[in-house]
């Protein structure tokens, strides 16, 4: 199913992999000094080094191909480094699957606490210990109240299970929130400056804020665990009495189906948005739909594609009709080719590497970062089928129609993000999930 355009890009890729590296550091703190050292030692193609920023050569002048390629390479480079084994010197996928760096980062619910209090200090050892998945909506209003309000609807897999979402941030982003007391309502209201997360920078070898959004499916019938990065997770459904949703907690093995990496960089103040998916998620509009998909059933012809599930939405309700998801925008051919070559690198390490089952859907970045508020993002529209399932565009008379300002665009949407105080929050909606510190009674 993924056998498209296998082009070997050896030289280009090698050149790319020796520029601007930082060594992965198990504390999660990214230190420029170590990054510099790693330049000398690392020569292999797959690297644990997270890039600071994208680097565009003077000779890259064509938007659609050359420049996009650099951003796509940046995306893959980030993906590889972030999915590198967190606590070992092994290579990514050396034993098929591995625990990852980003899973030791701070979870949103560890930063924005229900009582608005100061979060615990950064500690990757603690943070990565257990995985607690509570979100069934992509943008929860209040993190503990996660099934509310489901404005866009949950994503239900072929086994009738709800997809779960997780949001984590790196230390740079966490520190900014922590130092500026942006983790509660009062702090945000009092913050009078413009929120400006650090941006990654190559010349000074500094890291920018990075946030990662992951979507997970509960592994079940029809799912081949060898094709997923999996983890043991505690799944919690908080009670919503008004809706007869019962408090439930259970353990499950979950498989990663979507990974969204947002990186703030000096030259890309609207952030660089890299989005990945597990290859079995869904077919592409207008292409063959044979095979087993996580979120699509060829035989279910009566289901309206990319539509919210029937109400009521309750993760505990058995027998719910699965979502019928189709990718409306095909992955760009150059991006597919790059992905194919990266997959080769994975399988060279271990033919059973789970990472070969993840593809880059695209990278969005601001083309004219300083000229326009949203920076003239390209590609203009971009959607992850697991994260923006329902706003990928519409199909009219057999053709995909994109609506300016409504169809999914990472930058377009995140550009509107604000704090609870109404100030622009530098492209993250996370700050809106903060709670208020209880006012002391007069």
């Amino acid at each position: 199913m993924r056998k498209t355009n296998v082009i070997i890009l050896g030289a280009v890729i090698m050149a790319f992999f020796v520029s601007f590296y930082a060594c992965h550091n198990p504390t999660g703190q990214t230190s420029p000094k170590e990054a510099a050292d790693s330049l000398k030692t690392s020569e292999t193609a797959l690297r644990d080094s997270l890039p600071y920023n994208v680097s565009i050569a003077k000779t890259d002048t064509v938007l659609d191909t050359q420049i996009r390629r650099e951003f796509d390479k940046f995306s893959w480079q980030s993906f590889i480094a972030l999915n590198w084994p967190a606590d070992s010197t092994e290579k990514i996928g050396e034993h098929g699957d591995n625990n990852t760096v980003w899973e030791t980062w701070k979870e949103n619910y560890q930063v924005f606490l229900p009582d608005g209090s100061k979060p615990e200090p950064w500690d990757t050892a603690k943070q990565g210990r257990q995985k607690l998945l509570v979100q069934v909506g992509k943008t929860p209003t209040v993190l503990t109240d996660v099934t509310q309000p489901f404005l866009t609807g949950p994503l239900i897999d072929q086994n009738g299970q709800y997809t779960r979402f997780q949001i984590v941030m790196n230390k740079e982003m966490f520190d900014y929130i922590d130092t500026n007391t942006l983790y509660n309502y009062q702090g945000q209201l009092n913050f009078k400056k413009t929120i400006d997360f650090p941006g990654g920078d190559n010349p000074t070898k500094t890291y920018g804020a990075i946030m990662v959004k992951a979507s997970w499916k509960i592994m079940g019938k029809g799912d081949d665990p060898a094709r997923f990065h999996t983890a043991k997770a505690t799944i919690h459904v908080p009670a919503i009495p008004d809706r007869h949703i019962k408090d439930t907690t259970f353990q499950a093995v979950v498989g990663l189906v979507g990974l969204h990496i947002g990186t703030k960089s000096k030259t890309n103040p609207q952030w660089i948005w890299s989005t990945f998916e597990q290859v079995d998620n869904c077919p592409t509009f207008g292409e063959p739909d044979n095979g087993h998909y996580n979120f699509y059933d060829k035989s279910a012809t009566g289901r309206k594609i990319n539509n919210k599930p029937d109400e009521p939405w309750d993760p505990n309700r058995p027998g719910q009709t699965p979502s019928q998801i189709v990718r409306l925008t095909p992955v760009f051919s150059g991006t597919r080719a790059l992905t194919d070559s990266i997959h080769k690198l994975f399988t060279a390490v271990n033919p059973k590497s789970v990472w070969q089952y993840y593809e880059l859907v695209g990278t969005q970045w601001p083309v004219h970062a300083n000229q326009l508020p949203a920076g003239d993002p390209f590609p203009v529209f971009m959607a992850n089928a697991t994260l923006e399932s329902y706003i990928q565009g519409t199909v009219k008379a057999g053709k995909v129609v994109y609506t300016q300002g409504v169809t999914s665009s990472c930058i377009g949407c995140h550009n509107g993000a604000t704090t609870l105080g109404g100030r622009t929050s530098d492209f993250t909606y996370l700050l809106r999930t903060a709670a208020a510190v209880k006012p002391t009674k007069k």
Partner: protein
Amino acid sequence: MSTTQNYDAIIVGGGWAGSAIAWKLGLAGKKVLILEAGIPFQSDNREEFVETFFLATAKTPEAPYTQNYNAPRPSVLDIKQIPNPPEPPADCSSPIVSIDKGGYFIQQGPMPFGSTYERLAGGTSWHWLGTCLRLVPNDFKLKSTYGVGVDWPISYNDLSPYYDEAEFEIGVSADVDEQMIHGITFSPDYIYPMQRIPPSILDQVLTEGLKNVAIDNNPLTVTGTPAGRNGVSNIMNDGTVYNNGRRLCQGNTNCTPICPIQAKYDATITLNKALQTGNVDILYQTVASNILIDTATGEVTGIEYKQYETKNGPQTGSGTATGSKYIIAAHAIEAAKLLLMSNSQLPAGVANTSGQVGRNLMDHPVNLSWGSMPDPVYPFRGPLSTSGIETTRDGSFRNTRAAYRIEIGNEGWNWPAGSPYTQLQGYVGEQGLFGQDLISQIQHDFVRQFRLGYLIEQLPEETNYIVPSANCKDNLGIPRPEIHYNLDDYTRAGFQAAEQATVTIFGAVNATPSTANRVATGGEFTYQNETYYSNGAGHVMGTHRMGDDKTTSVTDANMKSWDHDNLYIVGCGSFPTGATANPTLTMMALAFKASDAIIADLDLNA
């Protein structure tokens, strides 16, 4: 023909009022079925509607929503002057042709009714502006205070707690202190969910310029308009930060006809919540066509409906919905039409012993004034309106003439004069401007444009009414609304007062008035030798009014039909008088009041 299972309640209309009641009943554990005439609410609605709006050559309130001949709705493009006597509607025998040519309404005049609505899940809330003003206490007792109109069967204080509830559900951004005018009071420690929306530059200029100006002893104070759009969250009394999970307003300047990012409340939000209770079912593309009555007991026994698959296709199904209680929430005009056309058992129609169903049709006829400010005010930025003048909404003048409120528009001459399209056509086509000259002209003229909209009070009158057309039907064979409408001298005097206010206001801020490029002339009329132009506000009221007396009103104060013990009729049609505030906040408060009564009724019978 199929008959549904027996529900606790059948609701006709999944629009604003219907969704609100369905949600309340669902929360209370009641089993509810909604019959919704229009297309369902689905994930791709907003993308599709916004795209349709972008591609529309006339950017009317209806532009995003294409005509549905099986559940048609009026369009502002069809509002024309009516000849005397009115011409018979064209091509009535072929509904699609007829509706395309002359519009959905059969306008019998003498003046055209200028307001419109939508028929799809979520109803007219899709293109409402977002204004959420409370009525002032005197609005509930116009007759006893000023000797005109009628009194409401309830007072401001009766409704006050329901206002709180409606403001929370809609998510209103406003400032309590600013809203305390003409006797409006709030519950102790009351706080709106969000802070008032920041004022536009135009608001600031008018605030400053009108500081020391008064009309009829009312100072022209500019105040932030309470808005059903997201602003900065407040901490509610329970210590939580208000957060409805939707985005903050990005000032798309497009609330009417569609907010691209749902920063503005619409009823699909409450409809979704209703469906989430697990107790509410909905049938889409299901048009209620007849109300069945047990003539012995007077109880409603079922509602017949017709179904279709495509907007211009044939009828594909029919059935009868049955339940214990029946709630008509189909919008003021459609509700009255449905009651009146259900006349097979009761010749005067259902709930119509008083003869008042369909009568007392009211709007807030709008007088538009526009012109140019001496300095730039930068229109076309921010919500269509962020502030208004509310002080003019009450005063002893209401003995003799209509009150009005003034909406300050942030969209330049867009509404009155089709800006920027019309002016640009002139610059390019008539003046031959291009290049730098064109840019300079735009940058000089457009940034100074502004407009005021006066929403003028209208009194209830029996002679303003809607009836089902005897001859003209829609594509399902359901009668179209025939409308008889005029403005009386009370309202016309309100227009005159509004124009006088314009002279005062424009003078105070040194603005140059304009009458150029008026786009809508359908509502032209003369009063004391002056010509005025009336526009619809979209505020359709009065057609099934509530009251204390069953001989002069259709329902009691709980919106229960005087005639049928298990029938409720909700919506702005319940208003005995129209006052001057945009009506829907009050309507939702009333819907919550009705919900309490329905739940109590059901519990009593249980």
